[in-house]
């Protein structure tokens, strides 16, 4: 009975919709013949077109051009490189101790930066995520503020705050007796990298706290309630409820942290320029120095650095993936 009724009603409904739009049944038929699939493909292509244009021209092309340039000796003057040198840039690079120094420093930066930043911001986010916490908005605001300031300004402010003559940090530490004499935080070969890393952690911590907070909000409340019933304290809850439930988010945020820190350039440029004695020189500053920082730019050589570095990172990434995969199975 019901089925019969709907059979009768459906064409009526269709007709009324069509009438409302001033269409005839044949139009509907035509639309079907004109195959919505084909029309849909056209729309999909149209929606992608502007993005693909920007992508091909401003993202993909510069990367391909870099690979091409890496086979030439070229100072960037003139429209196009012409002195083909084959793999010589790469051979020179493998023998260049400055490159390996910058490579090592970049790896140190990426590893230490993430080892400090990710757990620290996760713990802060965990503390802030408590809905019963008072003033949590105020705390958030304070912790988010640094990420709004630009790296150039952070460079200026931090250079002053850390300076060994009358820098506020030295003054305060001397006053409370932690230090016996002022420390040249950015001028010390052994300290400069660590200080740059800490400043970078401070600068971007807000962004990561936000990522973690977003992830923490996806954990069902029931899990926490169950933990409370079991009498778990907040540290236990964090270790045995939050961390396991957050695993997918942890993987994404860690990847994001690694990718972003591999690009390190601005903060080093603004604070130390790669010094003292190349102790904070990273791949970004190494490339910049070779391409823009000398009277005779080595564009081909810089491009080779970019390509080789990119390649090494991919190899490292695959290896790490394999090791992690094996760890999971074993």
């Amino acid at each position: 009975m019901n089925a019969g009724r709907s059979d009768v009603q459906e064409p009526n409904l269709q007709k009324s919709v069509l009438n409302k739009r001033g269409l005839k049944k044949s139009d509907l038929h035509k639309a079907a013949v004109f195959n919505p699939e084909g029309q849909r493909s056209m729309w999909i292509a149209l929606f992608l077109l502007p993005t693909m244009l920007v992508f091909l021209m401003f993202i993909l092309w510069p990367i391909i051009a870099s690979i091409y340039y890496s086979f030439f000796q070229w100072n960037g003057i003139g429209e196009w490189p012409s002195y083909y040198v084959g793999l010589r840039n790469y051979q020179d690079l493998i023998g260049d101790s400055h490159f390996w120094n910058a490579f090592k420093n970049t790896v140190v930066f990426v590893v230490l930066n993430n080892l400090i930043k990710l757990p620290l911001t996760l713990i802060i986010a965990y503390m802030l995520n408590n809905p019963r916490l008072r003033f949590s908005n105020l705390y958030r605001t304070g912790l988010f503020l640094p990420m709004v300031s630009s790296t150039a300004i952070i460079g200026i402010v931090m250079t002053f705050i850390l300076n060994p003559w009358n820098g506020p940090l030295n003054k305060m530490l001397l006053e409370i007796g932690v230090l016996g004499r002022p420390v040249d935080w950015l001028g010390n070969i052994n300290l400069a990298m660590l200080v740059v890393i800490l400043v970078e952690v401070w600068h971007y911590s807000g962004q990561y706290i936000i990522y973690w907070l977003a992830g923490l909000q996806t954990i069902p409340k029931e899990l926490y309630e169950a933990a409370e019933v079991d009498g778990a304290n907040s540290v236990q809850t964090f270790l045995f409820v939050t961390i396991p439930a957050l695993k997918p988010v942890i993987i994404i945020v860690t990847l994001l942290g690694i990718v972003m820190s591999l690009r390190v350039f601005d903060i080093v440029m603004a604070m130390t320029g790669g010094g003292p004695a190349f102790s904070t020189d990273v791949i970004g500053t190494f490339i910049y120095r070779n391409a823009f920082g000398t009277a005779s730019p080595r564009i081909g050589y810089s491009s080779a650095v970019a390509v080789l570095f990119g390649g090494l990172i991919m190899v490292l990434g695959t290896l790490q993936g394999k090791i992690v995969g094996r760890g999971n199975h074993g």
Partner: protein
Amino acid sequence: MAKATGGDYLRRLMQRGSLHAVLILLCIIWIYPIVWMVSASFKTNAQMWNNSAGLIPDPLQLDNYVRAWTTSNFSIYFLNTVIFAVSVVALIVFLGSTSGYVLGRFKFPGKRLIMVLFIGTTVVPRATTIIPLFQLADMLGLLNNRIGYTLAYTSKTLIIAILLFIGFYIGVPREMEDSGAIDGCNFWQQFRHIMLPLAKPIIGTVTILNTIGAWKAFMIPLVFTFSRPNLRTLGVGMYAFVGEFSSDWAAMAAAASISIVPMMVVFLLFQRYFIEGLAGAVKG
């Protein structure tokens, strides 16, 4: 389980107290450099050296701002930065939402390749491709004009915006489109009137992230405005200013405050929306 004994209560109170203590200490360390900068902008240079750690300028004076404002072109930089930020945001929202929608909701040949290319290229450090980017702009006549650095900067953060939109659109239930189909919407109308408004949290997030980003942008506006200083944005203007005033720390602090305090105010006003947007992005 509810044994609210006195000892329990005391322990809880202490726990909460230490939690607040930790957070307060963190906040003080976190905002000290910024408060220091703003306070230094009201100090004289002599005070900056003698009372470098203190946060209360005495006497408080506005001379640094006058010097920073009159001797540099901050009013022009300001206007340039606003135009730059608005164009970048408009472009990224348009490109990110259209391609994110299509990539998030439809299957079509070549989709996998596009995704691999998008994600693969985000790993490449941007400093390494600035030279070909510069040449391309030169070839297209886009150097030293607003369109050039807007497009170049857009390409820097576009992929992340697209990924945010994809993540969101994957999670939107299918029925939303079906309801549009019944209403007789075509593909564009369906997107414009149903799917785009749904993505408000992502649009908000992308807008705030890129406004902040454009405000801070440095390398691209620098390289693209070498011969047209009057197109510079605040990030670049600040850098030029440091070069000219290398010993006038108080004026530098004032200039730094001019360039970032407006952004902080914007951020504080829209903070709530921003966090909700990001949370939505991860959930979606």
